[in-house]
């Protein structure tokens, strides 16, 4: 029987097969944990006298509640005592159970979905979970990776398994070549706009097409990251030489002959020709242009050079009203208050390089606050080695310490009521970046271009050439 990439990874991890009366018991190769969704799971472990079954398959970091600014002594400035307590509790829990922990003292600390791949902990064919919906990011490596709730975090800590019925499969086939100046973020926003914010519910997505083949791992992670915004728990891209080259030499990646052997195994992780998918969606790459959102969920996205569409129902009408935009008008030209470049979607080197191209020898518009947050310590270090931080600082942008920051605003990095934020993050839900804050999701190029002009701006209008 012909199998998809998803079928192959799923089947390899079934401990107990599913039946009418029970879901499958699925083995988890890597469990990533952070401070927000793990404390209650550790409490359950303590209450029931359970231990962590495989601390060696568990990796901890702090990212959501962590400040991105430090005081004069170099200590993080927490938004409140509760946030500090939560961060300290993660570190205490992880240490108590012998889990490798990337806290403040680690040179690898970062957003969990940036750090895992950087360490080589994320590898093809693995099952990866985290109490975080953007775990779908790791599917860029041909892993089956998805977010779970805190109860299941407890299950994985205690048994290294979860109970789950096999989801359906959906192929997202983007045919043909992309136009210049179209980024990975634009592609995934175009996909979500097409299938809808619930279009992937119950499915695992597989992305196929020349544009994905041509992408770097940073870009593939941007695509898979937002699978959840289409309702799909997971999104996958088959591993190839780009994947192997990225992984070579990283801390957890097998070394020498073991690496050669692993690459041979990983090479087989691709869908068989003509395998079955429960659903197939086809997009033409040439139709995709720089995208922005105009409403209050990521499916309300449109090419930046088109007019805001008429609301199709009352909910969409309310969304336009929340955003204070009108159907039939241009989104470009709307005054921007804040630009945020960061998050597990767009905080990697390629994203910062793209932003730097638009900020080099320019200045952020006077009325705009631009905040740039690298995804991890290694990204920050490399960006500084390349002088990107100088470009940002000279342009008048803030260059902050790594973390989730303004994507979720748990650490106090939020906008003020009514402000319009052009953000490279993944969710434009009402209030996500602060009560009554309005969010436009966009690529790093669009965000940086908008920071310079002070209004929502099509990066192509600045005539800087290809953004890649």
């Amino acid at each position: 029987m012909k199998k998809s990439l998803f079928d192959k990874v799923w089947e390899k991890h079934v401990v107990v097969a599913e039946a009418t009366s029970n879901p499958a018991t699925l083995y988890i190769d890597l469990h990533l944990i952070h401070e927000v969704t793990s404390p209650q799971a550790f409490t359950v472990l303590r209450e029931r006298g359970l231990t962590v079954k495989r601390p060696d398959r568990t990796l901890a970091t702090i990212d959501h509640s962590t400040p991105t600014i430090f005081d004069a002594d170099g200590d993080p400035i927490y938004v409140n005592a509760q946030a500090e307590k939560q961060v300290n509790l993660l570190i205490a829990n992880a240490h108590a159970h012998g889990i490798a922990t990337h806290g403040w003292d680690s040179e690898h600390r970062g957003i969990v979905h940036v750090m895992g791949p950087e360490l080589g902990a994320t590898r093809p064919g693995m099952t990866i979970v985290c109490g975080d919906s953007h775990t779908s990011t790791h599917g860029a490596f041909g892993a089956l990776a998805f977010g779970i709730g805190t109860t299941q975090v407890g299950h994985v800590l205690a048994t290294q398994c979860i109970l789950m019925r096999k989801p359906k499969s959906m192929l997202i086939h983007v045919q043909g070549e992309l136009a210049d100046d179209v980024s990975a973020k634009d592609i995934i926003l175009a996909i979500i706009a097409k299938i809808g914010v619930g279009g992937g519910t119950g499915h695992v997505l597989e992305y196929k097409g020349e544009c994905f083949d041509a992408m770097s791992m940073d870009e593939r992670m941007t695509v898979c990251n937002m699978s959840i915004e289409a309702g799909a728990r997971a999104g996958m891209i088959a591993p190839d030489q780009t994947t192997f080259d990225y992984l070579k030499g990283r801390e957890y990646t097998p070394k020498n002959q073991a690496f050669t052997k692993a690459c041979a195994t990983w090479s087989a992780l691709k869908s068989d020709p003509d395998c079955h998918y429960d659903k197939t969606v086809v997009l033409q790459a040439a139709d995709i242009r720089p995208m922005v959102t105009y409403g209050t969920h990521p499916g309300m996205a449109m090419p930046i050079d088109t007019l805001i569409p008429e609301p199709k129902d009352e909910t969409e009408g309310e969304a336009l009203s929340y955003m204070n935009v009108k159907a039939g008008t241009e989104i470009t030209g709307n005054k921007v208050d804040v630009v945020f470049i960061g998050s597990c979607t767009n905080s990697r080197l390629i994203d910062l390089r793209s932003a730097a191209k638009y900020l080099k020898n320019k200045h952020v518009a006077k009325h705009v606050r631009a905040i740039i947050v690298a995804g991890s310590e290694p990204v920050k270090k490399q960006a500084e080695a390349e002088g990107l931080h100088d470009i940002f600082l000279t342009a008048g942008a803030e260059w902050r310490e790594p973390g989730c920051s303004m994507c979720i605003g748990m650490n106090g990095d939020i906008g003020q009521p009514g402000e319009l934020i052009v953000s490279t993050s993944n969710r434009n839900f009402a209030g996500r970046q602060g009560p009554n804050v309005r969010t436009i999701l966009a690529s790093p190029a669009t965000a940086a271009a908008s920071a310079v002009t002070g209004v929502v701006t099509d990066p192509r209008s600045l005539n800087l050439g290809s953004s890649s």
Partner: protein
Amino acid sequence: MSFDPISTITSKTLVLPAENIDTDQIIPARFLTVTDREGLGKLAFNDWRYEKDGSETAHFLNTDKAKACQILIAGHNFGCGSSREHAPWALHDYGFRAVISSEIADIFHANSLKNGFLPIVIEKSAHQWLLDHPDEEVKIDLEKQEVVLPKNGGTYSFTIDQFSKHCLLNGMDEMDYLADQSDEISTYEANNEH
């Protein structure tokens, strides 16, 4: 995490017709720094229910009548967004025992089933009836997998994973079930170069 078993729920409904109600609406992220799970009901739909100064808005969710409703009727694709289990914790603590929609997001759906909070996806016509008839007494029979609408609205069946149904009917925790598979898990590990 233990919860009370569910068999039938008979209650007036509270209708939130908006589509795509996300987990940031159900409980905003800035409240997720909590390290326990109790008492989150007061934060359910926080930004709809409270002004910036903490005073209550005129939203229906703040009324005693709303707080007595155990069944939430929500627009299509309820619970989309993050994996925060704080969302079903908050709804359960508010007083809801079930949500009925035409579609419910995957992770929210899975989290709900593990907390004695019944997520029901029902056919569109019944969903529309429920959206159009707020404040009616509706009966959910989990054993029979039926939603009974009043006023000749009809009886509609719903599907539910049989394992989850068993857990809900018995207040059973999946952890014990998984722990009982420790031999199978060890065998798997031994056979798979783990």
